[in-house]
């Protein structure tokens, strides 16, 4: 048992992964999995209905499942309720509201589980709308947290309302015109004059109908399915669905990409990797306390599995989006994680002392958690704005800068582990110390090259796009700070101004510089890379920087106390 349990743990993990490939709605009478695969247009790209469900629920509820007293709904089941059984959906407590000031403004009490239903929020709609419209015109960094949260609540209510309207049909022309404006996505693949697909809303399609013409098959299908779902009639539902799917077989659209995205949604590769990285980190810690009973081996197997899944997930995103890996803040976090874990695995291969794996697992977990928190505000596979619409520069500048971030974090984290171990172990271990220093030094050199290259490529892109190589944009300044800091550490080491311990301390500061450059500058609210102020992120950022300063202090104290 002792010998084989690491392998067993790997098999179990792989099994859990395999299970996630299977559709989740097999047990219901209505073939919901096939409905989830139906293509619609939203946000400028064709995606499965499943994505609409998951992203909307994430934005409204903060999670991808709804836990009700009697049962648990998947995101797609929830969407079906919203669209076709509205009376029931409006009773479900899905709207997440944490801010007590917002609750006070709408005369609601705080609850243990901070979720409220559309039904109970609806009477307060005029109040919310009035408050939100006052603050819509303020820039996001000028709003207080109350103002931000109430505007956010308003937008979520609008989204819910639009989702309810999207698959409705009506007879009256005025009703149809209203519905055409109030749709959350475009489910009807009509053809324009040139014969290309122009996705429209149900209502618009009906408005476009010439007299005595038959409605579009999509309109018929969704209308019939809606009625059948509402009446709990699985036969009619599946019937209408099957006929529409057959019609769709002859339609030429991005079918394989939509199917890939559906599978990607089901498997949730980054969530899987996140959990396994955490497990690996725990296993490694345990193996230090109780070595030789297999935790190192289990950790070794599992981290490779997690990394494989992480890699496949990253590539899947690239294929679905047809873009290089880093296109927004969310994907930058995924890529930073992928790069740091990869480099950590390389280090482990070279040095074989367990440190590489530990650092890889910890950083993999941390970056994926950051990514997870960044995925709540909308579709992470969003389209690129015009000026960013250049695959060449996205693949070169953005990737290099992100590699620079990854490696600076890796060296900083390695240095952090060095300082913490030295502080708590005390006993000098020259061989291990030397290999640590070589690791950190090597990674800092790597980081120097890529952060410089990335910054230069950014300048060249800017020169091609706006006519100036360097514009002192906050993000550019942040990148410059990383390059300068990496150069500074290296020169301090080469000139022997810093000894090994101080070199580690300086490397830890690299974490502060990089987090400022990656997240901090986005929150200043100015310049070309501004995303606006995010209060919770700011608090985490400050906490992180403070923690790094503490470690630096520890290292400095270590250095000067040893000198005596």
């Amino acid at each position: 048992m002792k010998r084989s349990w690491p392998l067993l743990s790997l098999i179990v993990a792989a099994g859990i992964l395999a299970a996630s490939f299977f559709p989740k709605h097999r047990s219901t009478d209505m073939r919901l999995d096939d409905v989830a695969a139906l293509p619609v247009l939203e946000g400028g790209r064709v995606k499965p209905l499943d994505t609409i469900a998951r992203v909307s629920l994430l934005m409204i509820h903060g999670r991808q499942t709804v836990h009700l007293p009697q049962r648990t709904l998947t995101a797609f089941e929830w969407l079906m309720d919203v669209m076709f059984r509205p009376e029931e959906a409006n009773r479900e407590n899905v709207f997440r509201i944490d801010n007590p000031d917002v609750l006070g403004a709408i005369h609601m009490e705080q609850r243990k589980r901070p979720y409220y239903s559309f039904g109970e929020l609806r009477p307060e709609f005029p109040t919310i709308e009035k408050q939100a419209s006052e603050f819509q015109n303020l820039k996001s960094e000028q709003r207080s947290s109350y103002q931000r949260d109430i505007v956010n609540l308003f937008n979520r209510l609008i989204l819910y309302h639009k989702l309810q309207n999207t698959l409705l049909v009506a007879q009256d022309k005025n009703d149809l015109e209203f519905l055409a404006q109030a749709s959350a996505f475009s489910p009807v693949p009509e053809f324009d004059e040139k014969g290309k697909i122009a996705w429209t809303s149900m209502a618009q399609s009906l408005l476009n109908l010439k007299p005595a013409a038959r409605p579009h098959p999509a309109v018929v299908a969704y209308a019939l399915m809606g009625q059948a779902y509402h009446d709990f009639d699985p036969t009619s539902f599946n019937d209408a669905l099957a006929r529409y799917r057959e019609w769709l077989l002859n339609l030429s659209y991005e079918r394989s990409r939509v199917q890939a995205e559906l599978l990607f949604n089901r498997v949730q590769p980054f969530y899987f990797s996140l959990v396994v990285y955490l497990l690996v980190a725990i296993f490694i810690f345990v193996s230090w306390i109780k070595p030789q009973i297999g935790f190192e081996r289990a950790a070794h197997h599992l981290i490779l599995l997690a990394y494989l899944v992480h890699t496949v997930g990253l590539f899947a995103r690239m294929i679905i989006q047809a873009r290089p890996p880093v296109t927004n803040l969310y994907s930058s976090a995924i890529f930073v994680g992928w790069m740091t874990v990869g480099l950590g695995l390389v280090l482990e291969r070279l040095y074989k002392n367990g440190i590489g794996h530990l650092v890889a697992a910890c950083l993999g977990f941390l970056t994926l958690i950051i990514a997870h928190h960044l995925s709540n505000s909308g579709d992470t596979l969003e389209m690129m704005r015009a000026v960013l619409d250049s695959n060449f520069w996205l693949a070169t500048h953005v990737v290099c800068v992100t590699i620079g971030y990854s490696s600076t974090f890796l060296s900083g984290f390695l240095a952090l582990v060095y300082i913490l171990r030295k502080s708590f172990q005390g006993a000098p271990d020259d061989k291990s110390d030397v290999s640590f220093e070589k690791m950190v030094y090597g990674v800092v050199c790597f980081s120097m090259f890529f952060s410089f290259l990335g910054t230069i490529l950014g300048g060249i892109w800017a020169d091609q796009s706006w006519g100036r190589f360097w514009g002192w944009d906050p993000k550019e300044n942040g990148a410059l700070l990383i390059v300068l800091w990496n150069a500074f550490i290296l020169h301090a080491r080469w000139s022997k101004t810093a000894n090994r311990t101080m070199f580690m301390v300086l490397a830890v500061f690299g974490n502060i510089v990089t987090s400022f450059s990656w997240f901090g500058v986005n929150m200043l609210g100015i310049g070309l890379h501004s995303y606006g102020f995010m209060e919770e992120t700011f608090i985490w950022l400050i906490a992180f920087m403070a923690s790094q300063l503490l470690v630096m202090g520890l290292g400095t104290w270590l250095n000067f106390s040893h000198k005596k």
Partner: protein
Amino acid sequence: MVLVLWGTLAQVHLGTYPAQRIFFDSFFVFRRFGSMRIPIFPGGLTLGLAWIVNLSAAYVGQVRRHLHKVGLLISHLGLILLLAGQFFTQVFSIESHLPIQIGESQNYSESSRAVELVLIDKSNRDFDEVTSIPSGKLKAGELSLPRLGLTLSVKKYFPNAVLSMKPELGPSEATRGVGAKVHVEEAPTVTQDDEENVPSALVEVKDAQGSLGTWWVSSALGAPQSFNSNGKDYEIYLRPRRYYFPFTITLKEFHHDIYPGTDIPKNFSSLVSLIDPEANVKRDNLIYMNHPLRYRGYTFYQASFGNNDQLSVFAVVQNPFAISPYLGCAMVLLGLAWHFLVSLTAFLRKRS
């Protein structure tokens, strides 16, 4: 690093360009103490120059002793080239913009920030004679223009102002022209990147016969204001500073593509016609994101648009040192890559 961090944080409340001027485009960062401006920190230009001097000195000292570290030497030389190139770019490059409507032709671009006071002599039928005074010279005081026989007395100059028509505030300080009906109050300069200053000046024009009147001129007052002196008709304006180029750009088409069903812009493109009588050039060009038009030392970039997609705005840059960052960076990267490979092979050889 301190300068970069300080300057970046200052950009938040000063606006990106004003902060850039104070911290990076200057030799020193100044602070007011009473009526004096004291330099309290070295600015971007000083630090950049110091860095260049440092690198060059180190270079000269090191070359002989460390010839085997060729890679590093090459990269430091590249760095010197990069910094020097940026220094010269900062000092010599001219950035302006060109807003142009569909169907319009233009042979000049305008500065986004600098203004000029112009007197246009319209007495000749075939051409206008323009006398231009850059805004730097428009401080309160006397400006004599002997060739025209005029003296301008700048009574007030506001880098930013608010103009209003409020009869209840009493008579305007201007005696003639549109400005006579307008009340102008000084305002603090803008700190938000999407706002613009409205420079304005109160100018009295005098010739040999005496004062011809006092006018308000402002970038917000575009209507012609005129006077007559020595038998010539002049118009006076305060307008964005113009940079003329020896050819003409005509905007034929402008396209603004968005992703279907969204507001997200997919592409902006302008079809322009370039006519250069001197070089006998007459051709069409497409200017779009990441694809500028380069001609005779001028580069035109698609920057913005407006007026319901009828107006295209180009950023125009004249920078003879534009190639320097490319050369400098190429050298640095070559040097670093060389050095990295040399170190890597040594490392791997030691391990085996």
